[in-house]
């Protein structure tokens, strides 16, 4: 089935018929081939056929180039989706008050965004009250607090205190930055639930926390 469709797609390329090519793609999709699999099961075999046709002289150089143009037009229909699916999970990210180190939180925030999280980036020099305010505005359950200096790292305790004072003990606080990576006990001292050592681990940890929160809510429901 897929081989037939690949041959049809190849023929549409050679016939310089983008409409037919798109129809072939739609047909394949309707037959149950997932978007992420279209490239491998349909497009790549069709391109291999095209390369073979050029090599054997079945199509000449000009026809090869024109077919490649059609293949380019159809390419976007078969590409795996670049953006990750929206997880629906909101994460608040910011660097502590009086701390202007931005690299860590920028990279982590961007990585979480790419991974499909709804990131609310408060930037640098964020007061504990601003974290609370944004939690109340968005209903977020995960807050990531960055600090790159000992003094500002210790001050992260104020974020936990404010959340507790407002009855938001359900909010998970994760911390990141040099002082926390060097001394994980410091994270416990400031009331954090976990430490984020890097961007990749941030995605893993936030995904796990989000899954736990969903499971807990399902259990309560």
């Amino acid at each position, binding site marked *: 089935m897929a081989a037939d469709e690949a041959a049809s797609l190849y023929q549409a390329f050679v016939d310089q018929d983008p409409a037919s090519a798109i129809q072939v793609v739609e047909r394949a999709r309707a037959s149950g081939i997932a978007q992420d699999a279209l490239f491998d099961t349909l497009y790549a075999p069709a391109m291999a056929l095209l390369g*073979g046709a050029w090599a054997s002289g079945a199509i000449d150089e000009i026809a090869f180039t024109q077919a490649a143009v059609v293949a380019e037009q159809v390419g976007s229909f078969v590409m795996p989706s670049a953006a990750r699916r929206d997880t629906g999970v909101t994460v608040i990210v910011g660097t502590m008050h009086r701390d202007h180190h*931005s690299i860590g939180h920028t*990279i982590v925030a961007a990585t979480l965004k790419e991974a499909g999280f709804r990131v609310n980036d408060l930037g640098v020099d964020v007061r504990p009250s601003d974290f609370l305010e944004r939690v109340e505005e968005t209903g977020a359950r995960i807050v990531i607090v960055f600090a790159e200096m000992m003094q500002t790292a210790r001050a992260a305790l104020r974020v936990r205190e404010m959340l507790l004072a407002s009855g938001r003990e359900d909010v998970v606080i994760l911390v990141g930055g040099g002082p926390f990576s060097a001394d994980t006990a410091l994270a416990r001292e400031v009331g954090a639930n976990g430490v984020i050592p890097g961007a*990749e681990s941030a995605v893993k940890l936030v995904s796990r926390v989000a899954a736990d929160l969903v499971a807990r809510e399902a259990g309560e429901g």
Partner: protein
Amino acid sequence: MRERSATLAAAESLARQGAIGAAVAACYEALAIDHRDPLVRALLAHLMLEGDFYDEAITEATAAIELDPDCSPAYLALGLAYDRRGGMSDQSVLVWHELAEVEEDLVTAHVQLGEAFAAAAFQDEALDSWKRALELDPKEARATYNLAIASLKREGMALALPLFRKAGELDPSQDELFFVLLGVRDRPAEPVDPAAVEPNREARLAAAALALRDEDLFTAAELVRLTLDEVADDPQALALAAYVYLKQEATNEAMACALRALSIEPTLDTALYSLGVVYARRTGLNRHAARVFIALAKQAGGQALVHVLLAESLLGLQRYQQAGRAYRLAVRLDPACVRARFGLAAAYLTEGRYAEAQWEIRRAAYYDTKRQGLFWRLYDRYTSGGDV
């Protein structure tokens, strides 16, 4: 034209041949004759730098500049000594700024100035310097790598990765990898004449490879066509065709030829290379590119750049730790690989390991500036009174 003593001329000759110890001894002899000769001091600074004696290089270069404030090779040696020593970015900024004004077309001075600014936390000034370097030479890979790192710090990996890849394509080492896979190291002594090539597969493909090495795409394409006219299913000919198309930015044709080659011989390294590069250029195909480069790494695991290409695809998949491992392997295989050093710096930045990232950037500069041989360019210009 500056006059030079016979002793200095001997020191110069020894230094150009790489006889560092003998050249240093000759410089000290020259200093015994005239200790106020800035040329001798500048040459000595360069020699000390070559031996990684940074404090001594700083002393000699400073002495040369005191003797002649226009001694540009001494500024170069001084700036490099500050940068390689580390922790002297404030002084380094002043030196590179001066050299960039005196030798306006010296691209490296602007790149180094940018790195010194970045190390001193003047990010905007750093960006201006790298942009100036790219205005002078749009193919300056290290300026682009630095812009990629700056982009990573400001906006994250999604925007930085295309810059890393762009810089990588400016880096001639990527083409070198293809020719290593092909087994062609040197350019042909004379252009390939298709009419003189024996009419058999081996001779045609060997000549096509040599023509590609010589950037003669037309001849290579002609020889590949002749091969395919006889055997349309020749995977090596198809892989060469894929590379020819790749070099002409015809990525779909390249993909078609590479996929056809791999459908005949699934482990053909040259076809894997072209297909991986095509996939890496397309948004959304990072997973495919990583898969192809993993297959290539199994075929050519001793090549540093294979691991760099794999690492870049892994960055696109947010597998930063795996990417870091691939970059570290690349650096172990080739410590002078600038692309691997910058990539490793990026991987370290994602893990909050800023000092290690900075170290890798400095090592990249170390190997890049050693490779360029800029000292002799400035030295010859200085000795000829600026006429070179």
